[in-house]
C-alpha cells in the first residue's frame, strides 16, 4: 500500500516534469527486470542492501538505531581493499580473510558507539553519525593526493584493485553476478536463526523491547548493547567488503557506494525489520536503482525521481498512520512493530 501510494504521488511529480508516468514506470520495470542483464543488475544492486539492511534490522531488534551503517560500510570497504591489495594468498583463504577483515572493521567501529552508549550514556544516533563523518574524512585523505592508499599515477582519487585472489567468484561468467547474493541470502537465514532461535537472539530482543525487564531477568545489558552494535556493524562492514570484492574494477573510489548505508536504513524499515522482509525490500530498492537509468533515457525523467520515490515509500511506511487512514486498514497488533524512538535520553 505504501509503495502504491508512493507511486501515485511520484506520478504527479513526473507529470509536473512534463513526462508520462506510465512510460516512466514501464521503462523502470524493463530497466529492472526486462532482460537477463537488467535482472542481474537488480540483484547486484540489492546485494549490499540486503546485508547492510540485515545489520540495521538487527540493531533495531536490539532497540538500537544504527545510523552509522554508511560509515561502517565504508570502513569495511577500505579495510578490505587494504588487506586485498597487500595479501595474495590462495583464493580459498584470501576471500574469507578479506571479508572477515571488512566485517571486523565495521564491527569495531560500531562496537565503539555501543560502548559509548552502554558505559557513558551517549546516544548511538549521535555517535554513529559522527563516526560517519570521521570515516569519510579519513578515507578522503587516504585515497587523496599523496594518500597512503592512492593508486600510483592515478589522476582520480582511487585505490589499487584487489588481487585476483581476493575477488569474489562470479556465479555466471561474463556477467556482473557475483557470489555476494548467495552470501547475502545465507546471512538473512543466519540472522533469522540468530534472532529467533538462539539464546543471544532472545536476549537481544528482550533488551530491545524492554530494558527494565532485561535487567530484571539478569541480562548483562551493557555487554548486550556492545555486542548488538558489533554484529550490526559487522554486517555493514561485510557489505562494504563484498562491494569491492565483487564489482569491477575491484577498488575503492570516491563516490563509490555512496548512499548504500542510508538506503539500507530504509530497506530495514520497509522490510519491517524482519530478515525475510529485508531481502524483499532490498530487491525492490535494487530494482529501482537498476531501472532508473533506462527510465531517464526513455521517458526523459530526471533520475532523481527514483530518490523521490524511495523517500516517499519510506515516509509512507514510517508514517503508516497515513496509509491506514487512507485505505481504512485496521491497526496492526503484530509483535514486529518498529519503535524508532525508544530510549531517547534514557538510562
Amino acid at each position, binding site marked *: 500500500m505504501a509503495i502504491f501510494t508512493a507511486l501515485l504521488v511520484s506520478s504527479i511529480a513526473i507529470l509536473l516534469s512534463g513526462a508520462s508516468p506510465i512510460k516512466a514506470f514501464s521503462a523502470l520495470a524493463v530497466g529492472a527486470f526486462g532482460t537477463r542483464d537488467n535482472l542481474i543488475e537488480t540483484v547486484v544492486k540489492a546485494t549490499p542492501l540486503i546485508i547492510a539492511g540485515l545489520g540495521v534490522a538487527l540493531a533495531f531488534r536490539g532497540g538500537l538505531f544504527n545510523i552509522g551503517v554508511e560509515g561502517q560500510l565504508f570502513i569495511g570497504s577500505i579495510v578490505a581493499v587494504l588487506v586485498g591489495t597487500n595479501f595474495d594468498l590462495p583464493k580459498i583463504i584470501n576471500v574469507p580473510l578479506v571479508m572477515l577483515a571488512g566485517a571486523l572493521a565495521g564491527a569495531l567501529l560500531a562496537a565503539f558507539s555501543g560502548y559509548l552508549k552502554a558505559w557513558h550514556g551517549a546516544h548511538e544516533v549521535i555517535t554513529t553519525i559522527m563516526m560517519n563523518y570521521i570515516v569519510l574524512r579519513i578515507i578522503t585523505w587516504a585515497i587523496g593526493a599523496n594518500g597512503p592508499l592512492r593508486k600510483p599515477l592515478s589522476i582520480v582519487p582511487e585505490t589499487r584493485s584487489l588481487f585476483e585472489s581476493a575477488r569474489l567468484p562470479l556465479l555466471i561468467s561474463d556477467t556482473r553476478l557475483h557470489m555476494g547474493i548467495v552470501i547475502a541470502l545465507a546471512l538473512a537465514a543466519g540472522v533469522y536463526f540468530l534472532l529467533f532461535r538462539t539464546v543471544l537472539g532472545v536476549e537481544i*530482543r528482550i533488551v530491545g*523491547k524492554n530494558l527494565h525487564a532485561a535487567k530484571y531477568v539478569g541480562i548483562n545489558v551493557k555487554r548486550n548493547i556492545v555486542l548488538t552494535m558489533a554484529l550490526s556493524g559487522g554486517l555493514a562492514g561485510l557489505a562494504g567488503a563484498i562491494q569491492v570484492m565483487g564489482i569491477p574494477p575491484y577498488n575503492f573510489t570516491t563516490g563509490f557506494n555512496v548512499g548504500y548505508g542510508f538506503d539500507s536504513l530504509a530497506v530495514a524499515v520497509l522490510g519491517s525489520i524482519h530478515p525475510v522482509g529485508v531481502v524483499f525490500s532490498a530487491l525492490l530498492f535494487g530494482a529501482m536503482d537498476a531501472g532508473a537509468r533506462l527510465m531517464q533515457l526513455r521517458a526523459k525523467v530526471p533520475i532523481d525521481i527514483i530518490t523521490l520515490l524511495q523517500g516517499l515509500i519510506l515516509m509512507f511506511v514510517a508514517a503508516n498512520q497515513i496509509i491506514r487512514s487512507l485505505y481504512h486498514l485496521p491497526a496492526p497488533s503484530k*509483535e514486529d512493530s518498529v519503535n524508532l524512538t525508544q530510549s531517547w535520553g534514557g538510562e
Partner: protein
Amino acid sequence: MKNNKDPILSLHNITKSFGSVVANDSIYFDLYPQEIQVLLGENGAGKSTLMKILYGMYQADQGEILINQQKVVIQDPNDALRLGIGMVHQHFMLVPVMTVTENLMLGDEKTKGNAFGKLSKLDRETVRQEIIALGNKYGLQVNPDAVVEDLSVGEAQRVEILKVLYKGADILILDEPTAVLTPQETSELFEIMRSLIKQGKSIIFITHKLKEVLAVADRIAVLRNGKVVGHTTPAESSIEELALLMVGREVLLTATKGQSHPGKVVLNIKDLSIKSKSEVMVVKNFSLQLRAGEIYGIAGVQGNGQSELIEAITGLMQPHSGHIIILNKDVTHSSPRQITLVGTAHVPEDRQKHGLVLGFSVATNLVLQTYYLPPFSNGWVIYPEKVEENADEKIDEFDIRTPSRDALVSNLSGGNQQKVIIARELSRPINLLIINQPTRGLDVGSIEYIHKRIIEARDKGVAVLLVSAELDEILSLSDRIGVMYAGELVAEMDAKGANREQLGLYMTGSKKEKMLKENINQ
C-alpha cells in the same frame, strides 16, 4: 435512599462495544441529588467505560444521558464540565512543578483585564481567595501556594477534588480514589465526601474494595461483565453478598492458612543502607531475618524505601552499605542473574515495566527467567517446542486466560498478566520468594487465586518476603509483619497480635517501636 427527589443524572440503556467485546450492555443508572452512589465491579466489568462515556471521552453506541430530566449530548470533557460533571482520576492530572493555585487555573486562566488576550497578566490572587473559600466550605484545606510535588498523596488528591469543584461541578466522579491512600487518609477522604454531599453535591464513587463500599455508600450499583447485576444499599447487604454479586460466585475474602513452621534462615539482611540516584538515603540500617516456611509482610505507605529494598535484594540496585545473605551466600553485590540462580523468585512491583516483555508472546514470557537453561536451550540454541510445551502446561496449571500461547501478553488482563509472572516464578525450584504488590489493581477472583499460591509456596518451605500497600493483604497473608517508614523498619510484630489501626500509626511515623533495634541485633 436519601430523598424522593428526581434523579439529577440518569443513564438510559447505555451500550458500548469495542469490536466484539460489549463493555457496557444496556445499562440503566440513576444518581439522586446529595447521595454517594458506589459503582462496584471488578476490573474489566465496564465501570471505567461507563464513566468515560459520562465524561465525554467515549461516545455510547446506544442509549441516552439525562441531566435533571433533560436529554444531553456529551461530546468531550468540556461538555461534561459545562453540565456540572467533574471527574477525579485515579492517576493525578496535576503539573508537579506548579503551585496549587496555578494548577487550578490551568485550562481556564483568569486574567487581570483582557487587554492583551492570552498575553494578559494572570489573576492569581482572585483564584487564591476562591481556593481558600472553597476549602473552608467543604473542609478541603490545602495551602494554595504549595508546589504540588511537595504535597503528600492525600493532599494532592484534595487538590484534584478542589479542581473539579472550582470548575463548578455538582456531580463528582471519583475513580478508585483510595488506591493510593493510607487508612487514615482514606477516612479523611470519606469525611470530605460526606461534607460535599451535605453542601449539595452528588458523588459517584468507583471502587472494588468492599469494606469502603459499606463505609461510605448511600446506594450501591454492582457491575459485572458490562451489565448492572444489582442495586442495593449498605444496610441491606454484607461484604459476602457484595462479593458474590461482583464476582458471580463465592469467594474467599481472607486467605485461609495453617500454622507456619519456620525453618532455617533463608534471607539475612544486616544493617542495609541504600542511597537513591539523587544521593538521598532511602533505606537506613535495615536488618531482617527471614526463615523458610514463613511469610514476612512489609507494610508501609508507598515511597518509604520498600521498592529500593527489594531492588537491592534482587540485585537491581547496589546498596550503599550492609550485607544481604541468601542461604549463607553473600549476594550483596551479585548480579540479578546470580541471585536468581541461588533460588530467588521475584514478582516485581510494576509487572508491565519489569515483569513482562509486553511485545512478546505468553509462551516466551513464561520462560523469561529460564530460556537459557535446559530443557529450553542447550546454552546457545532455543528449542521452540519445549517453550511451547511449557506454555501449554503452565496456562493450564495456573488458569491463565489467554486466546493462545502465542498471543501477546499485552493483550491479557492485568490479573492474567500477573498469573503469567506467578506461574513463571513459582515453577522454578526456589528457596526465597520476593513479591511486591502482588495484587495491585487486580480483581477479587485473581487476588484470591494469587494469595492461595503464595501460601502454597510457604507451606512447601519457601521463605516469602511480601511487600504490599494493602493492609488487608499484609494482615491476612503474613506470619510476621514489619512496618517501614522513611527508610527504617519502625516496628516488627507477630501477625496474630497486629491490627489495622496500630499498623496505620506506625506507617505514618507517628509511633515508633523503640526497642526494635535491640530485638533484631541480639
